């Protein structure tokens, strides 16, 4: 933290940066809801929403939780379990939905 000058930690962003990040978060949320309601986007709805959501997630983590300025060890403490959780999520989806597809291809057996 800036006030203590701990190792690996730089000064936190200013109030102006916080306000700009908030504005970006609002714009991204409006885009998310807009994309949901516009039929033209329905073909690419899921990837678009995932990208917008990831952008919002990253902004909050980097600027509001200060990972951009703090020690990289904190990024590791957060990032490693996050990657593990994402891996478990993907594995379970592949296991369940992949199994359904295989069963369907085998003639419902």
């Amino acid at each position, binding site marked *: 933290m800036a006030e203590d000058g701990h190792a690996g930690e730089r000064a936190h962003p200013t109030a102006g940066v916080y306000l700009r990040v908030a504005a970006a978060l609002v714009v991204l949320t409006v885009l*998310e809801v807009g994309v949901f309601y516009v039929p033209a986007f329905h073909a690419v709805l899921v990837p678009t929403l995932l990208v917008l*959501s990831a952008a919002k*997630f990253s902004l*909050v983590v980097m600027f509001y939780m200060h990972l951009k300025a703090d020690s990289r060890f904190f990024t590791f403490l957060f990032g490693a379990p996050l990657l593990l959780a994402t891996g478990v999520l993907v594995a*379970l989806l592949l296991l369940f939905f992949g199994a359904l597809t295989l069963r369907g291809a085998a003639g419902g057996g």
Partner: protein
Amino acid sequence: MTHAVAATHHTSMGLDSRKMAFWAFIGSECLLFGSLISTYLVYKGRSVVGPYPHEILNIPFTSVSTFDLLMSSLMMVLALAAVQRGDMKWGKIWLFSTALLGLVFLGGQVIEFTEFVHKGLTISTNLFGCTFFVLTGTHGAHVTVGVLWLLTLWVRALQGKLGPANAMTVEITGLYWHFVDVVWIVIFTVVYLIQ
């Protein structure tokens, strides 16, 4: 807390031990919510009786709740910035605003849950109801803890027991609050928008 006392919290890496422990806790929370979100997605579209998500989820209402929680995160960082520069007047205002927005979010969740129950969706109705209420209810419980934590800090600030020397306490509270916010960012997309 004096600087000398604060220095006793440093690890051999020069990092604050409380902050390091809290990041490890947040990492464990990632696994908790990761498992709940995984369970929701695995059972998505497998309910054999209604109500189904597209029949019951209210996107405009939840969008307002999402906006509310995002703004509460802004209030939280402004509170931290104010406490760090010793401006306790604004520190108290932003802390209370954050807690208030958290309460508004919880009020919205109570309204949403009540409406769902009236429409016939309970935790035991179908797979959607079970996974939805467990996931969003666990998140709501985290928001409740956050609001209580924020109000505790606000009361300490009113008593004059919170100042720049305790900025790390406010920062750790903020880490928890922002984590609750990022979890909602994921839930809003995965549960509400991707139906």
